[in-house]
């Protein structure tokens, strides 16, 4: 794949060429929250000029594909039913017959420009054709099909896809099935001048909302989201850092997660007031629980809680936002204690937590597809592994009539790379490819909390008799932080060292993180609160990533 112009890539990465794509880590994990919307079908025929051994020739390239009619930020744009048809003129056929070719197979590489808000990236749509007979005379029509990269963006705005140059690799065979000499013929085609103004294949509106809000199509954050890519150039698509919960508006900040229809329902024997429509009437309208990985504590104590957490992470280097998938956290709730400090009465609570996935302290593996300027699209399978204790510490200042809470979650996590695929080709990263150190964050109290660890802060408050808002301990809410992704080590196999590539591409400071914790399930209490636990005492509430 060749871009139309030189991109601002680091030279050391450029040296690796297009085979190794820049891939972004931690963050770019947008869930495949496919909300069924209308389909935009594209069928475009464009004039191209192809450079054949015999000289430039006019050709017609027809591209068909289907796109979602519109998406929300973070949702996939997955082109489907993609075909590329090249009608090569008779002269091209002559170039083949010179080689005594009887049949030919073709591989196409269509460069598709992706633009949004003035930012540009490129994708390569690859396709292959079955073996075709070479006609005795007349044009040769090659139709190729194949999977193409999925796109996801971190910001709203129309996203346009534009047809660019087309590479056609022909593999001719002689009548007896042997390869011709030479065995292949590469043809480069570019849009003809007459194609100008017609090269836009599709424009997909990307709305700021997380979902379209259509009740008939509940979003389905998958447990291992195949994910997405910021289709952004290094110059930045707008993927704003997660905003902090302001919490100043009552009942607004407690997040959808903790105020889901099922959460916190009380006393279902409660009376029905004549003029109150709320109690007892909501049951029929509850959304089904989205799928989520198993999250059970099989040896609970009376203090055991379980909760899901998920959210976006930005990778600053690539200006992309991604999703860390719905992950299970097991918590042992600490006792809340009253402490008198010089500035007032505090309520302190320290709880221990750990990630849990199939018995291991980690997130589920998640796939991230990255599309970066000038490089081939890359899919990586990643996992965040917990390598030490995770502490959840809340400090609530009790100042009548308000309660102001700050909760710090500290967790040493390493980012492990399980697998990398570049344009579908596996790049062997080896079994131990991971960050050399745990991810780190600016630590407000480094003397008390030494070592590298991620720091997330949740702020919550309850003001003068209004609802609590923001992050509240057992009901969750938004947690934000900033993370530095350290250098990678042990990446590569067979003598190929991928450490520097991954480090150059991904590692760095200032990556914003916004995670949403859902309502906890108090596993060990006698009667779990309805709506907080499933029947087998897993967290009922599955949070959705939010910006």
């Amino acid at each position: 794949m060749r871009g139309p112009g030189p991109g601002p890539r680091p030279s050391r990465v450029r040296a690796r060429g297009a085979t190794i794509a820049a891939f972004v880590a931690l963050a770019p994990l947008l869930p495949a929250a496919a909300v069924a919307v209308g389909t935009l079908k594209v069928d475009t025929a464009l004039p191209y000029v192809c450079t054949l051994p015999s000289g430039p020739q006019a050709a017609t390239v027809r591209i068909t594909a289907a796109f979602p009619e519109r998406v929300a930020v973070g949702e996939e744009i997955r082109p489907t039913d993609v075909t590329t048809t090249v009608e090569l003129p008779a002269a091209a056929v002559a170039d083949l017959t010179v080689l005594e070719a009887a049949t030919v197979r073709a591989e196409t590489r269509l460069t598709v420009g992706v633009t949004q808000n003035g930012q540009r990236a490129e994708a390569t749509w690859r396709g292959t054709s079955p073996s075709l007979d070479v006609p005795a005379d007349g044009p040769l029509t090659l139709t190729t099909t194949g999977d193409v990269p999925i796109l996801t963006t971190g910001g709203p705005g129309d996203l346009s896809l534009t047809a660019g140059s087309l590479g056609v690799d022909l593999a001719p065979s002689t009548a007896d099935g042997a390869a011709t000499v030479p065995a292949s013929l590469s043809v480069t085609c570019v849009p003809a001048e007459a194609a100008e103004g017609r090269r836009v294949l599709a424009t997909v509106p990307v709305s700021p909302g997380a979902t379209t809000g259509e009740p008939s199509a509940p979003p389905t954050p998958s447990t291992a989201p195949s994910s997405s890519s910021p289709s952004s150039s290094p110059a930045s698509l707008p993927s704003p850092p997660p905003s902090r919960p302001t919490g100043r508006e009552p009942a607004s900040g407690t997040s959808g997660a903790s105020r889901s229809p099922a959460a916190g329902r009380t006393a279902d024997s409660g009376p029905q007031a004549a003029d109150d429509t709320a109690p007892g009437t909501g049951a029929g309208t509850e959304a089904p629980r989205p799928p989520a990985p198993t999250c059970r504590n099989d040896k609970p104590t009376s203090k055991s809680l379980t909760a899901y957490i998920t959210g976006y992470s930005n990778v600053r280097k690539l200006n992309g936002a991604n999703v860390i998938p719905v992950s299970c956290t097991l918590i042992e709730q600490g006792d809340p204690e009253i402490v008198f400090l010089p500035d007032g009465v505090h309520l302190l609570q320290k709880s221990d937590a750990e990630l849990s996935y199939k018995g291991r302290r980690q997130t589920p593996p998640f796939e991230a597809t990255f599309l970066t300027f000038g490089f081939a699209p890359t899919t990586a399978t990643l996992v965040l592994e917990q390598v030490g204790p995770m502490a959840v510490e809340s400090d609530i200042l009790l100042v009548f009539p308000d309660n102001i809470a700050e909760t710090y979650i500290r967790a040493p996590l390493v980012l492990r790379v399980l697998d990398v695929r570049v344009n579908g080709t596996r790049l062997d990263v080896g079994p131990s490819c991971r960050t050399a150190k745990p991810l780190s964050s600016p630590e407000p109290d480094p003397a008390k909390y030494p070592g590298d660890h991620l720091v997330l802060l949740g702020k919550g408050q309850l003001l003068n008799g209004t609802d609590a808002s923001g992050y509240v301990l057992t009901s969750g809410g938004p947690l934000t932080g900033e993370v530095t992704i350290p250098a990678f080590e042990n990446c590569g196999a067979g003598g190929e060292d991928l450490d520097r590539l991954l480090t150059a591409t991904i590692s760095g400071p200032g990556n914003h993180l916004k995670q949403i914790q859902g309502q906890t399930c108090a596993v060990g209490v006698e009667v779990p609160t309805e709506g907080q636990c499933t029947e087998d005492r897993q967290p009922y509430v599955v949070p959705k990533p939010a910006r």
Partner: protein
Amino acid sequence: MKKPMRNVAVVAGAATAAFALAVSPASAVPSTVWTVNPSPANFTAVNSGNIVLSVNGIAMTCTKSNASGTMQSATGNPATVASISAIAFGATGAPCTSVLGNVTTVATTPWTVVAQDYTAATGVTKGYVGNVDAKVTVGACVFRVTGKASGTYTNSTGALAVNSLAGELTVVSSTNCGSAVPVGAKPLFKGTYLVKVAGSTTIPTIVGSNP
């Protein structure tokens, strides 16, 4: 524990100001005949404004709460003029909240409405909600509150304004709540309910007299 108690006292003071509450000695001869109209009748009550339970300065807010029960004329002083057979705190989609997390309150009923003092000029009955018994859960912290909560009932509006005084409610058991909510803590319960005869828009009245 001293300091938070003082905070709580401040809470109570500030709260009472709004409602002119308290079980003060009757200005005249105490009522011994309590005429409820209609009687007997079923009633419903829905919160007007938020209901707040606080313990040691930790506030728990319910934006939705409702109750139902029966009411009937009675004699004596104090006299039970109503029985609350069900009371809910929070509702689907609107749980009670606190900075410790969402709060679940399950009441053990019946609770009572007890009349003690009537002011004919204002149509206001002073008394309390009695036999209060509720289990409160926040995450793994579970505690039980029992006691009573002072309040007033105003005939013109049907407003049952509950504003408990320090010491009326007590935490009698507590698990996983640490020193935030120990046994013996004195929670406060504050909020207003609008009462209507069930299935109607009729506001019931309570009139005390001393024949």
